[in-house]
């Protein structure tokens, strides 16, 4: 039990008639990078929001770092980057960071140090006094990631963090994710990029609210006799949106 950062048991969530997540279970080990894959509408975001307690599941259980959710205290050890931008567009980069620092109960000096480090990492040092709405889409995504990393969380939950981010920065993001995981940070990440999925320790492929495969990406390729991961996903999943 101590080795698991995340335990999800029989999680089920529906919106009226639509079953978004249909009784899924998985565990994420501490320090692991765990990828959640699947076509749009497969239930990835609903899963993530249910884990965080932003949505109330119909049934099932979620444990983060051994604490049963919903639990506000344990969220202090979790960093979250949502799919949508979710930044205060009228505030500067620095003010957005400062707001979250306050929410995580950060003393002043530690914030100043951490802020410098994080702004350097996301390459926004020069832009810290710029208003978010004046930044490019890619820069805004970087601020969003910075907000998730600021308080040195033990668990990182990232919903499509690299959308709209250029290849150089994507590479540096992943280098950083790997460094974090080596330091023991657990990362749950959703992505549509297969090269990113290949960098995960394990992936779960979701389709129509269920997990259809869960293993190491290489193992999955062998098991399904596929040339690459994209083929695995195409073989195993059904896209509701592609069907129309």
């Amino acid at each position, binding site marked *: 039990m101590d080795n698991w950062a995340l335990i999800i048991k029989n999680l089920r969530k529906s919106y009226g008639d639509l079953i978004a997540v249909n009784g899924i279970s998985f565990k994420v080990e501490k320090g692991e990078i765990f990828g959640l894959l699947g076509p749009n509408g497969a239930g990835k975001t609903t899963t993530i*929001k249910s884990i*965080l*307690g*932003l*949505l*109330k599941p119909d049934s099932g259980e979620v444990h983060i770092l051994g604490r049963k959710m919903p639990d*506000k*205290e344990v*969220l*202090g050890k*979790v960093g*979250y980057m*949502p799919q*949508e*931008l*979710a*930044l*205060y*567009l*009228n*505030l*500067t980069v620095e*003010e957005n960071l400062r*707001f*979250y620092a*306050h*929410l*995580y*109960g950060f003393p002043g000096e530690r914030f100043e140090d951490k802020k410098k480090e994080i702004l350097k990492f996301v390459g926004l040092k020069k832009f810290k006094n710029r*208003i978010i709405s004046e930044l490019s889409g890619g820069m805004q995504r970087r601020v969003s990631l910075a*907000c998730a990393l600021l308080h040195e969380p033990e668990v990182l939950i990232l919903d499509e963090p690299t959308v709209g981010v250029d290849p150089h920065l994507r590479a540096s993001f992943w280098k950083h994710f790997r460094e974090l995981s080596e330091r023991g940070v657990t990362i749950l990440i959703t992505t549509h990029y297969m090269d990113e999925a290949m960098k995960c320790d394990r992936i779960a492929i979701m389709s129509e609210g269920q997990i259809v495969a869960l293993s190491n990406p290489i193992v999955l390729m062998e098991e399904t006799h596929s040339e690459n991961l994209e083929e695995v996903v195409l073989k195993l999943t059904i896209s509701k949106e592609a069907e129309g």
Partner: protein
Amino acid sequence: MKLERILAVSKKTFWELRHDKKLLAYAIITPIILMVLFGLAFGGQVQDVKIIIVNEDSGHLASEIVKNLDRGTFTISESQNLEASLDRLRNGKCWAIIYFPENFTKNVLLGKAVIKVYLDRSNLNIAETIVSGVNGALMKTLSENGAKLPINVEYSAVYGKEAKFMDMFLPGVVSLAVFLISTILSVLSFIGERNMGTLERALATPLREEEIVLGYSLAFGLIGVIQASMMMLIGIFGFNVEITGSPVLAFFIVSLLAVVGVNLGMLLSNMAKSEAQAVQFVPMVVVPTFLLSGIFWPVEAIPKYLRPFSYLLPPTYAVDSLRSVIIRGWGIEKVWRDIAVLIGFGVLFLTLAIINMEKRGSK
């Protein structure tokens, strides 16, 4: 619950206001404009009412009465021709004709004198001004001539001896502006947070629903105090309003009303399914507040069956207690009931907003 997180939400609101000039202008300039406009439009008494005097009296009394008509209230022109004057009245060139028939002075001594006033009563305010103006001039003339009435009424004002219309008006305008602006501001900011996803993002941290609501309440309450101060200063220096009671108590009531407005705004935006729906709620608050909360006319002037609605509106209590403080000079020991009701509204809306938010999150 942690104070640091509540304050973080409040501070963030002020940071946003600092960068968002449009919102800042809305929060700061709107109350000033409202105050000046309402003050100028309603503050003065009726002035420069055009009337025509047709005086056929050969004695002295009629011209004495005319002399005693207030020259500030009335713009007087004289005519010898009643028919021509009536035409002018019918064409809207004047508001009234005051006609003194032949032998008016003589008839006074016989006890059967008549002053005929032809009146355009299409505007009741003006009509009443004319009636009381003519009566006033008549009484003054009689007493100057040593005539005594058998009965006299003596009025002595317990409160508001020096009160001007604006003194009564200021509490209403301040309450209206502060309540509406704080409600609308909080509806707008909350919908903005919901649409941007920042509300949900913030809830994925240790921040609790009640901390968000309290943080907003605190920030907009402060903004309410700033708005109230500006409006009261304009009232005091621009329109000579005198605050008989404690200004601190007056500010307290206004900021309390602002907090009630913010909490109501948060409740409304939580109840709404969409932005459009939340915006539709706004007139549902504005119109009853405008009509029923005793801002422009007393609750006593509202039909009995509508009065219960007046007592469901928080501004009713703010206007009532604010007027008592400003004009009557009452202290907390006399207005505590109104204040208690306002606090009750604030707590009720706050609690409902939190419950609604938690329910929403758990959908």
